[in-house]
């Protein structure tokens, strides 16, 4: 099960398929693509297991490795966590 890290508000702005996101915990500012932003917004709606998340985001089988890498990347930025 994955969820947003407590305290993250996901303040963001988007331009042309890219999104600037403020990290409330680190104070950093991130630039994300569509997929990462969709993933974060999905988790903002509530904790979700990886399968359900992949289904909600319509991740194809051949995209699953990239999807898993993205989860690890966002976790490393303290935006999401596994529970």
């Amino acid at each position, binding site marked *: 099960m994955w969820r947003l890290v407590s305290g993250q508000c996901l*303040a*963001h*702005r*988007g*331009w042309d*398929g*890219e*999104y*600037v996101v*403020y*990290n*409330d*915990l*680190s*104070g*950093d*500012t*991130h*630039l*994300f*693509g*569509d*997929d*990462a*932003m*969709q993933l974060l*917004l*999905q988790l*903002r*709606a509530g904790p979700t297991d990886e399968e359900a998340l992949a289904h909600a*985001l*319509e*991740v*194809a089988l051949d*995209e*699953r*490795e*990239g*999807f*898993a*890498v*993205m989860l*690890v*990347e*966002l*976790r*490393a*930025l*303290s935006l999401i*966590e596994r529970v």
Partner: protein
Amino acid sequence: MDIQDQDQDQAAGVGGMPSKPGRRRFASAGAKASGVILTLASTPGMACVCKTPSGSLSGNLQTSSHSTQTVVCNGMSPGYWKNWPDQWPSGCYPTTTAYQTATKFATIFPNGATTLYQTGTLMDVLISNDPAQDPHNLGAHLVAAYLNVKSNKISFFTVAVLKTIWHDLYTYGYYAPAAGVKWFAKDVANYLSSTEN
């Protein structure tokens, strides 16, 4: 721009992915990055991303068409340093021998609140799994971070930064990585663990 302002109208909706036929989605490498593109750090050392094994297979975590900067760290975990004392950097001693005394935690991170912090060695702190003596394993992650810095496995923060974090935690109860942001012991432990492979 007030970065705190939400701009939901310009964000992609949760319910449906933008339709872009032909685009390779969830690509962490390639001409068009779809995930994490780059990070602007608010405080040196507080935003680095460790390269993970899976990430290393798919490209650098902070590589995109917008930036050629690559951030790599090879920080090791408390478990690694506990099990590989022969890999400790010079000047750090895991055990007491005829030639040197084991390095005490308090010589680097003084004024801790628990007996372990006050009298234990670096190795004692790594070994301890007592949440009463090392809440959130903060001490263990600090020791790992210290050994990672001393052995040049990570370069994006310094021993001085670690000491400042420790000082602020025991003095104020939190560390502020950026204005208006408070990291408590658990937050610091989580951050430090994210710098470990």
